């Protein structure tokens, strides 16, 4: 076994960390959070120039990475800096789905994603689906060369910025069947598509998307009719690796800020870090953080394993990281006292990133149940 990063990944980590620590300051980020777009086009372009988007795709997809550890390395750094730019949505989800399923023509969009000129969103979840990937009520009906979509999509992250919404819809079967789900490339301005956009608590934006007789040519379908589920599950697994790694990075920042604060904040004539009650809690956070890192490594290392084994490790990691995440976020705030509750202090945003990551692709309970199902 070898737990060292490859030289290439090490270099990518270093350059990304350097770039973000120089450019992605708390002040900069707070400006981005307040902006109407919810992300910075400038930062986006520079991340693309640095090759960060390319690192999320395999060579045959036009990138130079794409494996679980590439995703983990990138997202850990994004999490460390509290980055809100939609790499998950444009690259891991949108770009990943197209490169897995798309025709040669459709694949050209991936190049645009990698060079930073195209945004994507994954319009999959629905008001009643919660975290269930196979729960799709939106319908697609084909007539001749045209397909018509009808339904609603919930909390579609990055929808407003996206050129295309990769939209799931059911061509046959019952709402909770795995078979029957297709994916379509829906241009953002397709007639019949409407959206209500809003900011997210932890940064970035999303929209409620309504599809009212959105009619597309059949060539807008990605892959075969009704065969989308396995790829959706695979990309959700990749997204889970990304989210777990991002949360790990954010937890690193939260504990580092807390450790520094314990050493500097004076009360009762001494640093609060001299109180054993707080020292032990800091020690517990560090123990849990070490565990979280191992869980992320397990998940990243099994991303390309067979679905059952992959999902077992993914759910284990998401459950553990969600539990540790809540602990780290809450304890970091508590050990800081009032100051951590203020919007301007870096920890406030980091803590929100940590906790709110649990709400994408399954919370602690959801992954606990998946794990039980797979191990029972």
């Amino acid at each position: 076994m070898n737990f060292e990063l490859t030289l290439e990944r090490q270099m990518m980590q270093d350059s990304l960390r350097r770039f973000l620590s120089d450019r992605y300051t708390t002040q900069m980020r707070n400006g981005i959070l307040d902006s109407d777009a919810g992300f910075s086009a400038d930062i986006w372009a520079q991340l693309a120039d640095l090759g960060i988007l390319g690192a999320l795709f395999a060579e045959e997809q036009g990138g130079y990475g794409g494996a679980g550890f590439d995703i983990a390395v990138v997202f850990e750094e994004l999490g460390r800096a509290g980055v809100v730019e939609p790499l998950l949505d444009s690259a891991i989800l949108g770009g990943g789905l197209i490169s897995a399923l798309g025709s040669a023509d459709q694949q050209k969009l991936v190049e645009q994603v990698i060079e930073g000129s195209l945004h994507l969103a994954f319009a999959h979840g629905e008001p009643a689906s919660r975290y269930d990937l196979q729960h799709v009520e939106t319908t697609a009906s084909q007539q001749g060369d045209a397909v018509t979509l009808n339904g609603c999509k919930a909390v579609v992250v990055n929808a407003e910025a996206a050129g295309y919404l990769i939209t799931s819809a059911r061509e046959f079967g019952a709402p909770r069947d795995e078979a029957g789900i297709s994916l379509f490339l829906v241009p953002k301005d397709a007639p019949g598509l409407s959206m209500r956009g809003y900011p997210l608590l932890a940064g970035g934006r999303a929209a409620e998307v309504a599809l009212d007789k959105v009619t597309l040519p059949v060539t807008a379908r990605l892959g075969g009719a009704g065969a989308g589920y396995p790829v959706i599950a695979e990309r959700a697994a990749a997204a889970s690796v990304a989210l777990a790694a991002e949360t790990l990075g954010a937890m690193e920042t939260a504990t580092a800020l807390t450790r520094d604060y314990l050493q500097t904040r004076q009360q009762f004539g001494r640093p609060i870090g001299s109180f054993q009650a707080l020292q032990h809690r800091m020690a517990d956070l560090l123990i849990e953080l070490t565990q979280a890192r191992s869980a992320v490594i397990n998940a990243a290392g099994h991303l390309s394993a067979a679905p059952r084994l992959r999902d077992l490790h993914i759910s284990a990691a998401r459950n553990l990281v969600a539990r540790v995440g809540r602990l780290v976020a809450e304890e970091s705030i508590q050990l800081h006292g009032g100051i951590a509750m203020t919007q301007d202090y870096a920890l406030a945003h980091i803590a929100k990133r940590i906790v709110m990551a649990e709400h994408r692709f399954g919370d602690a309970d959801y992954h606990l149940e998946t794990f039980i199902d797979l191990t029972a």
Partner: protein
Amino acid sequence: MDLNYSVEEQAFRAELRLFLAEKLPPEMADAVREGRGLGKEDYERWHAILNQRGWLAPNWPREFGGCEWSAVQRHIFEEECARAHAPRIVPFGLSMLAPVLQKFGSKAQQDHYLPRILSGQDWWCQGYSEPGAGSDLASLKTKALRDGDHYVVNGQKTWTTLGQHANWIFCLVRTDPTVKQQAGISFLLIDMDTPGIEVRPIILLDGSAEVNEVWFSDVRVPVENLVGVENKGWTYAKYLLTHERTNIAGVGFSQAGLAAVKRLARSQQHRGRPLIENPHFAARVARVEIDLMAMSTTNLRIVSAAAKGQAPGVESSMLKVKGTLIRQEINDLARRAAGVYAMPFASEAVLGSNEAPIGPDGTAAVAAQYFNNRKLSIFGGSNEIQRNIIAKVKLGGER
């Protein structure tokens, strides 16, 4: 022992329910239920409604216009108000300052300030904490120097809750820098309209603007605004804090919060079934409900003992720690119940507007509330400070 409510107590509850059904404005109850921020006028309106009925001051003695309710009555009142989604009663004047004035204030102060608290004429805020004096409150630096028949106050307070609405602030100030920290502090009442006071908002992590910094430069305060004896302020401050902590158990809020979690979990689907039927979620809800049932009785036991004249000491610290942990756990459950719909940002501005919130009923504010209520274990003497108090008393044999 008898765990049943007496006939009188049941009648009291019925009377309260009737009152709340008739007098609590429905739009106000909706706002509270949905976690929308309330404005100054809302608080004032509810305050006036309660005052008119004579139910504003459950803990005050009759001689000052209070209800002098028993511990059980107060508990019922708290429960029913929370159940009906009544706004919280802003505590600074009514349940923090008033007990201090009643015990330590001059007759003139009692006659002047207490009726104004009841009538709502004055909105008080609490000027204890400073940037360098949080848990270590006694290290506060805001100075008040005697100059003829005035004190001249200089310094900065922080975390002043709802200070933007207040016209008066009760402050701890240093009147003697030469003695042991606790011995040089005085308790001063300051009119916020006095020249030299500046209030600056602090935005919290959920976007709310409920706390402030308050700056004092050469603020002249008449000496008759001193409560009790100069340099004895620490005694009064500690007396006030035990009152602050007893109210912090928040059993009523937890009960209302738990009911909301269950409502939400009944309406949300999880793997094709109502979330409330999910064993993991249900187990978590049950666990906190069991804690809350015991907490409710703990609260009654402690408050009844206090009413019989036994000072609430370490017990109020226990109430604070356990009560806040329970409330925070309920907030966490609400956040999880909302699923992906916890993600939208529901700012005070958005929630106050006419626009329909994003997501199903009851989900809009849950994540913001979860983050906002991290404050519960920090303020009013942090939970660590409460544990220190409990340990010191129980290990050190002090009382």
